[in-house]
């Protein structure tokens, strides 16, 4: 009886571990998609609305989920408040803080945090084009990750259950 319960616990534990690993991958895909969509929105606001960067941050704060919303809200407050702090500096600080705990790769983080430094175009076409480049980068990463996550998810689940079985056999 105890052995059966032990085997079950090991199996459930390993399956859970596998599920959590697969979940992290899915979380990464979700964030890549969210970032790509935000950049697309930013590009539209520049092209069609001709809004300033702090204003765009305000609209991003209103439309996105909590982690991004807080970050963009703070960027708007700090740049549009009394005197106003320099936008590229605030962007780098706040976006850096926001992306730090997320399951993203270093180059993905850098693409967003360093984006503001390169946004100094005199025409909306150039500015939107630069944001569009970053958007394409994330769109590509999102597609790759989405394809990979399905296969990897199945593999991770299988490996975790097999590991559980192996552990159970060894312990028996």
């Amino acid at each position: 009886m105890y052995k059966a319960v032990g085997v079950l616990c090991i199996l459930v534990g390993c399956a859970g571990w596998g599920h959590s690993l697969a979940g992290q991958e899915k979380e990464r895909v979700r964030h890549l998609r969210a970032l790509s969509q935000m950049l697309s929105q930013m590009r539209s606001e520049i092209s069609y609305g001709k809004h300033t960067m702090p204003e765009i941050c305000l609209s991003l704060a209103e439309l996105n989920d909590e982690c991004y919303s807080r970050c963009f809200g703070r960027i708007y407050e700090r740049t549009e408040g009394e005197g106003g702090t320099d936008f590229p500096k605030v962007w780098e600080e706040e976006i850096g803080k926001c992306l730090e705990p997320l399951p993203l790769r270093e180059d993905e983080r850098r693409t967003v945090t360093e984006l503001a430094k390169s946004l100094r175009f005199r025409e909306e076409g150039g500015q939107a084009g630069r944001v569009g480049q970053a958007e394409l980068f994330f769109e590509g990463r999102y597609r790759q990750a989405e394809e990979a996550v399905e296969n990897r998810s199945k593999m991770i689940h299988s490996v975790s259950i097999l590991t559980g079985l192996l552990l159970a056999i060894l312990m028996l």
Partner: protein
Amino acid sequence: MRAEEILGLFPEESRDRWREVAKQAKRLQEIRLRACLPISILADNRESFVDRQGRIVDMPEAAAKSAPEELESILGHLCRYSIYAFADEIRQGFLTVQGGHRVGVAGQVILDGEGRIKNMKYIRYLNIRIAHQIRGAADALMPWLFEDGRVMSALLISPPGGGKTTMLRDIIRQVSDGTVYGRGVNVSVVDERSEIAGSYLGVAQNDVGIRTDVLDGCPKVEGMMRLIRSMAPQVLAVDEVGSLADAQALQMAGGCGCKLLATIHGGSMEEVRQKNYMSYIMEQGLFERYVMMDRRQGACRIVEIYDKEGKPCTRR
């Protein structure tokens, strides 16, 4: 006008240099920055210079010179790091920033295929003109602008720098809010060069009254008819009538039942009458009051007020 507002015009890293200048906020009229040339300021109509430590000095030799990168950085900050959003204003040579201050820009223009100005690059000259709204500037004029509680059409006349726009702004505010001479009415303003309301991102930075609608950056001729159709104003205000098309648009607006408040450059009633586009309007009696203004010892003053026939008004 607060010192913090002046400091806020500059990027964070260079604010220390401007602290001394910002203390002069109430007297400050202009800050002129020219690439590789001394930084100058105008306060109380007196020119001074700013040295490296931010002290105000009298001699240009002691003054600090602006680096081209510094000018780019200030422009970027003034445009909230979104120069593209201000491209139309920059094309016209000025932009209005938070607080209603106007920044004149000059550099190298980029032309399109048809020889029109497309944009500007190498912006190396900035003239930051500090906005000072003078509340009550029109107090002395208000009794002559109302008759039986009804506002009258008025044309303000003065040479350049005579205070017409300052006066017009305060008239608009008082007509819109209402005074002891008459109730507040809906006023529409065509603010072609953002000088009256000083709009920044569509919001008037100057107090132009609670019943005032502002069409910012729109040519006068197009703007007047647009506002009449869309906002149904009782009073329509425009700055600097300067062409036959402007005069014709005023006439049409007057024909729609709007009272008009406008300004025009001129040294005398005769000089204005001699402008071919104004003579007909004046003969038709479109304006019920003509206000002659000038500037003496730095202060704007009303020289004379005329009625629609061009006769001086008697003081009530």
